[in-house]
């Protein structure tokens, strides 16, 4: 199943190795490396899953277990019933429901305008966007914390949603800009001659032409907001507003060695991401090229 699922994930056409590489020593080395890579990639997830199925009633393990001595699904209902995980899941979904559509709107708007700018201004803004991409999150959080506090959105879900007003990441704006740049300019010119304003051209002519970009940004932004651990860590103190990632950290703080429950939480956080990527790669990773 996994084989089927991950096939073609990074959907790019690549040529084979240059011929001379197929040397006698290279083939076995290559196989060994491949096995290591395969194991290294999959084992952390498998360990996560296998530990999540270990009954909490068993005494703690004293040596490493590939598969626990007994298996149970109980840990999954338990984490959602005995902890506030249900509420935090709701918060996570709420953030996504607001932030992702907003990201697509502001990101595509900016990308559309960016693609239409004169060459010089466009280059300037692209350079600025790339520079913004290279600013580490770690230098931004202290001042953002103070700004959010000043405007009164600290410790509210708005602090988590805030980046979506700028299309969440300059990368998404650039993705939209590239997509719009590939649409023949005549398409927009015609609409403009017919008297449509820029907003109208963007909405009814532009957006329908860039479905792959909309899909890609939706997927990337959804996963980014779903996985976002740092924003709630920095800006949210009130447990009522926790999202799932910090919720799972809270779970760990209340029960540091409750591995089966912690791993169940981790699996619950990871599987939707895998699911989204599996579905997505069938759609737009191919469509987009």
């Amino acid at each position, binding site marked *: 199943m996994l084989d089927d699922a991950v096939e073609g994930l990074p959907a790019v056409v690549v040529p084979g190795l240059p011929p001379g590489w197929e040397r006698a020593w290279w083939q076995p080395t290559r196989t060994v490396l491949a096995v290591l890579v395969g194991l290294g990639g999959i084992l952390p997830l498998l360990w996560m899953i296998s530990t999540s199925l270990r009954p909490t009633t068993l005494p703690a393990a004293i040596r490493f277990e590939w598969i626990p001595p007994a298996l149970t699904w109980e840990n999954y209902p338990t984490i959602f019933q005995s902890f506030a995980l249900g509420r935090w899941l709701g918060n996570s979904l709420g953030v996504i429901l607001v932030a992702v559509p907003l990201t697509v709107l502001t990101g595509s708007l900016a990308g559309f305008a960016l693609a239409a700018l004169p060459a010089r201004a466009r280059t300037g803004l692209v350079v600025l966007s790339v520079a913004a991409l290279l600013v580490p999150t770690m230098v931004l959080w202290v001042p953002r914390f103070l700004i959010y506090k000043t405007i009164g959105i600290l410790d509210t879900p708005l602090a988590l949603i805030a980046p979506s007003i700028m299309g969440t990441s300059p990368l998404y704006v650039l993705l939209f800009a590239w997509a719009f740049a590939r649409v023949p300019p005549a398409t927009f010119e015609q609409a403009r001659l017919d008297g449509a304003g820029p907003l109208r051209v963007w909405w009814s002519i532009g957006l329908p032409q860039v479905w792959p970009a909309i899909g890609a940004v939706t997927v990337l932004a959804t996963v980014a907001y779903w*996985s976002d651990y740092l924003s709630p860590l920095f800006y949210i103190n009130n447990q009522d507003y926790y999202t799932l990632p910090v919720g799972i950290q809270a779970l760990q703080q209340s029960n540091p060695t409750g591995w089966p429950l912690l791993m169940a939480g981790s699996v619950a956080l990871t599987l939707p991401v895998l699911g989204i990527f599996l579905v997505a790669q069938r759609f737009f990773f191919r469509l987009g090229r």
Partner: protein
Amino acid sequence: MLGPYLIGLIGLIGLPALLTAGIAFTQYDALSLPQWLGLDNFGELLRDDKFWNGLRASLILVVVAVPLRVLGALGLALLVQSRGRATAFLRGAAYLPTLIPDIAYALVWLYLLNPLYGPLNGLSQIFASGVETEAVNPVATPGIWLTDPRAAQAAVILLLLFTVGEGMVLLLAALGEIPRDLYEAAELDGASGDQQVRHLTLPLLAPSLLLLTLRDVVFSFQASFVAAVIVTHGGPYYATTYLPYWIYRNANEFGRYGYAAAMTLVLYGITALLIGGLFLAARRWREVQYAG
């Protein structure tokens, strides 16, 4: 139409940079008004052992982990670039760890590195730095991943090395852009496989490798921070109290936003120096390539 984007760039990236520079010269607890301190915060920085320790730990991490990550991504890309089901599976497997959300990824590593029944405990002894550690498990080799300073640093690097899948995807895309004819031409000229990789593939990949290196430098600050918060708690003996984590503790725990801002300013500087330095090095390299 660019309005929201520009407002966001200014409000969420530009303004914070200015604010950091302003607050860095004050004493500020985010409750009462900031008080002007002049250069006092920076004077304190010079005397703060934990700051220098964090700076060193962060730089060691960048110098060790980033080249390993870039080389790993390159190696992977070359390994899995051919078509076929097996390589498609490998690509998926290599990409898988990058999809696991930060917190889940850190927790699974915390579990795997535990001293009692961690599967990699035997490996941890390699990094033993001779600091006294207590044997926790008489049955098996005790893992010292989280109790020995050097092993803990190695553990964080290990944790960063498992997520090179994204870099691999970027390099695969770049490899796919190289026209096949170039290899055929090189073949006709009698270039061996190694020569083709050295003189054709690598120079053509250079811009992507530079991009990836820059991204990894920026990424390493964030990834090491999450590892420090969840896996090592900055320890043992502050071995993994990287600069971003020390900033976090100062702001979050001690309420010293002014001092944290001063350190953030240093982090800005280091990032700019690293990125600028890499750019210059890349340009110099290109000049040498074309001159020769």
